[in-house]
């Protein structure tokens, strides 16, 4: 019997006080329709809550939507928390209204990929599939 590809689990969250959740809901529906398990945490999440949820849900990736302009604070805070919790092998990606120079800087810091308004959902899906596939785990179970 051919082995089915592993189910992709992805956590989607909106950090901070930004209440604009239209975009993240579109992405959630697109991922769901692409056969992924999407854990949606909703609004007003702190970096600690996001990383705690990502660890408990054992997700392959965390997707963050920020439309408030606070991306230079929140993304680094999430990356730091991931390191602190020993969960920095989880892929962090995101989307929002983010200037090119900030994107460059954030991707240098360790954010895997940032999408801006108008990005086709298929691009995001394909990116995520490839990025998750590329990750290899060598941990022993027993």
């Amino acid at each position, binding site marked *: 019997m051919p082995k089915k590809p592993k189910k992709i689990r992805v956590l989607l969250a909106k950090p901070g006080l930004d209440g604009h959740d239209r975009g993240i809901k579109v992405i959630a529906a697109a991922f769901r329709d692409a*056969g992924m398990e999407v854990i949606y945490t909703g609004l007003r999440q702190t970096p600690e809550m996001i990383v705690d949820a990502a660890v408990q849900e054992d997700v392959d990736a965390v997707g963050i939507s920020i439309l408030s302009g606070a991306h230079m604070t929140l993304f680094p805070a999430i990356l730091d928390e991931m390191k602190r919790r020993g969960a920095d092998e989880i892929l962090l990606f995101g989307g929002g209204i983010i200037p090119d120079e900030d994107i460059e800087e954030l991707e240098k810091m360790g954010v895997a990929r940032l999408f801006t308004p108008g990005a086709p959902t298929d691009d995001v899906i394909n990116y995520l599939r490839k990025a998750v596939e590329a990750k290899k785990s060598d941990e022993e179970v027993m």
Partner: protein
Amino acid sequence: MTLLERFELGDIRALSRLISHIENRDTDFQKLLGRLYRRAGRSIRIGVTGPPGAGKSTLVNSLARLCLDDSQSVGIIAVDPTSPFTGGALLGDRVRMGDFPTDGSVFFRSMATRGASGGLASATDNVAILYDAFGFDITLIETVGVGQVELDIIDTCDIVVVVIVPESGDAVQMLKAGLMEIADVYCMNKADRPGAERLVADLRNTLQTQAMVRASATSEGKLSAHHHTLAGSEDSDATVPIIQTEAVNNKNIDTLHKAIFDHLKKIRESGFFEQDRRRRLRKKILSILSNRFQAEFVNGLASEDELDRAIDQIASGQSNPYDISAQLFEHFLNRN
């Protein structure tokens, strides 16, 4: 260090990774469960079920908080449906989660049904065993929004809370088999809405009538042990409690919490707790066996080619599904 060793040291990340292994039915996942099983058995499993949007997640969230107040650690499993078309799922039960401490006293895992149709995922029971072995005092299990017949929760939990809302129907709905007869505690949520009092009265009426009917039936030996405790034939006022709550306003959740733990005390004293765990174990063994049988034999009953030929024969009027199945079974027996 292996994941199992880290798990045994209380590493949350290892617990989370092992849950995925079990959910994905990775190689040797049953051996893993076998190794962990001796550490399990202490956690109390409380199931919360009811129709979509009844307030299950909010209730589970508040119940978890009350357990924490009692210095009990809590593991939560919340199940949401998998799409039958794409295999994808939107797991949204975390939206109702409050700001819980991140010190490991609460653990929350969302699960997709992945094709199971009894209100839980097929791996939910195994994940609960993992929680138990990890050491959570209480395991709260929330089903998908259910209708009347998704009842896997009774084979997974020590105590079942059925959540209904004022719009859940009338006296006849309360009398129907299935969901409305599995509760150890009923929770009428959104009790501030019109119709709540009326439906509670209808439900209470139904329960009292049933208790009388069952008391006489058990004395004639016609009903099972489960119904026997429901009937409460030893003390006449022991009908199932109905607690009216307003989960979003955190109203009366303490009463619900108390009703659950009162019931736990009662079934422990009566011996039903152990008896029901034995019933569930029997089912568990049979279910592991039948899964194994399914995997090893049933999938080999007929090849795709054989099935195609069979369908051709039926479509052209030469045979029918019943005769074909009998032939294929015969063929399978001769082959093995």
